[in-house]
């Protein structure tokens, strides 16, 4: 393990993180890819470097550590599968919204606007004579695209 490679891995992680903090799925995918590479770098550089571990190709003690190689290989293939799925999501999202933006969750934004305390209001009706607020009736049934204006920002 060398400072240089540790630094490289760290940089990949940093950049990946930076990309992950926005809304465009394509960028999220790139970010994930970079972070994944970072992890693999740690895996293969923090362990024994050497000749390809092929029996008969030389002195086994000079072989590179084969175990991390197989682990990384597994990891790579898995991440390929999941990436394909993510791309499919982006594709679907494009079909539906003509964008690959990850918008905010509508129900989270409705919290407090609707009347979770309807019963309390019921109870309060005679006491404080206040009518039932029911913003829920104005709840859009389908999710409007303008919920999160297309900003790739960390929401305030």
């Amino acid at each position, binding site marked *: 393990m060398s400072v240089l490679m540790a630094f490289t891995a760290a940089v990949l992680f940093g950049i990946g993180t930076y990309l992950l903090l926005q809304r465009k799925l394509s960028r999220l995918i790139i970010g994930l890819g970079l972070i994944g590479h970072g992890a693999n770098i740690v895996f293969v550089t923090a362990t024994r470097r050497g000749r390809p571990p092929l029996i008969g190709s030389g002195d086994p003690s000079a072989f590179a550590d084969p175990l991390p190689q197989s682990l990384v290989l597994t990891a790579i293939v898995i991440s390929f599968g999941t990436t394909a799925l993510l791309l499919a999501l982006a594709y679907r999202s494009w079909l539906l919204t003509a964008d690959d933006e990850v918008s905010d969750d509508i129900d989270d934004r409705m919290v407090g606007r609707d009347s979770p305390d309807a019963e309390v209001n019921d109870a309060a009706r005679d006491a404080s004579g206040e009518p039932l607020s029911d913003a*829920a009736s104005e*709840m859009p049934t389908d999710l409007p695209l303008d919920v999160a204006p297309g900003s790739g920002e960390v929401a305030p």
Partner: protein
Amino acid sequence: MNVLLPLPIVLPILAGALCVLVGRSRTAQRVIGLTTLGALVPIALVILVRVDRDGIAVVQAGDWPAPIGITLVADRLSAIMLLTASIVLLAVLVYAIGQPGAERNHVGFQSVYMILAAGVSSAFLTGDLFNLFVAVEMTLTASYVLITLGGRLDQVRSGMTYVVISLVASVLFLIGLAFTYAATGTVNMADLAGRIADLPSGVQSALAGLLLVVFGIKAALFPLAFWLPDSYPTAPSAVTAIFAGLLTKVGVYAIIRTQTLLFPPDSRPATLILVVAAATMVVGVLGAIAQEDVKRIFSFYIVSQIGYIIMGLGLFTIAGLAAAVYAIVHHIVVKTALFLVGGLVEHAGGSSRLSRLGNMVATAPVVAVLYMLPALSLAGIPPFSGFVAKFALFDATARAGDWWLLGIAIAVSLLTLFSLAKVWIAVFWSPRRIAPRVASSAGAAVNQAALARSSLPALMVVPTALLGLLTLAIGVGAGPLYDLSQRAATDLMFPDLYIEAVLHR
């Protein structure tokens, strides 16, 4: 055991492959699925009985001795989880077949569901940290597919959140593995247990912390739980039910396993866990109170209940762990049942929004009764399992003398009662405040089906009822189960047995 132990992993995989092969024939797929999961239950039962009688069972895959190859290990905890999981998986599959909607007819559903089952089982059975990673990936990938099956807009949006966050968790797990291997040169958990102890203290506790965070994301601990309430409700209720029952528990199981097995007591972040547990239960229940949609409310319950379980772990006493183990079983059953009821409510009421539901005690008394069972259990009303779990946890906390924690836990259970009562009132008592229309959360398809025929399909009712009665049963007959949990907890507190069993030291 050599034969039994791998079956819960390999059979579902085979079944999944077959489901893909038979292609369009739903009937064939269902037969395959039901028989496989049906077979899993007795297998898991036998495993549990044998393990409880003869001690920890170990199988070296490919006959490669540990720590070279991958080891399958079943101790009491694993066996308990396995049995509970297989029962729930079967029940939910039946429910899903009975439920009108896309997933039932979807050609991919059965195969992916099988892969989910395989992933869950192998997560519980594996004794190898990297294989745990693979198992978790199986579970997650299957869940990605299930949660987006049908590809509606809200599903896609919440699916993105869910998938991206899970993938980040996976990458963090991967780097954690890289660190672990770089520091120890092995990934076999029993072997790790020995080698980690030799590491510098900082590295030890840092690894513990990293793994805690990684699994904390999957287990939905505060402040890593955002994704759960946003994503779960959009899936079809059967899918949500199985997620609620099992996925978070895989995370919890992983936390318990790694924290108790891998790390020496002094490097465990015990206090951190307790604080996190408290925060999780409070935030979860407050979230539930703030919601207006049945499925979202239930999702927030998951979070707050996870807090309870983790509290039991954080005490790191036999009493605490025993309570946690019992609580997990209770939670898997009751939470699944609750979401299945949620599906019935949606089916009968045509929506999952409180404001669009109402008066169902008159229109659908059956659903009302079915809601009562898990609700009472969750509220901790005796003699339901919820009471036993709650009391066991409180008692353990009191033994440990963490009074502040006990106070918070009690307050949270009051809030839970409040929220459950609110749901009951809004759904079953108060008249509808808004005429039902296509609900904005997953109700759409179900809704249309409901308008088509308002009767409740038996295939949906029966599993729900059975799970509901199961919570009652494991509450009334809690004695033996709690005994078992205590033995499991003892195994966890003294991991030497586990290590010996695996490494034949």
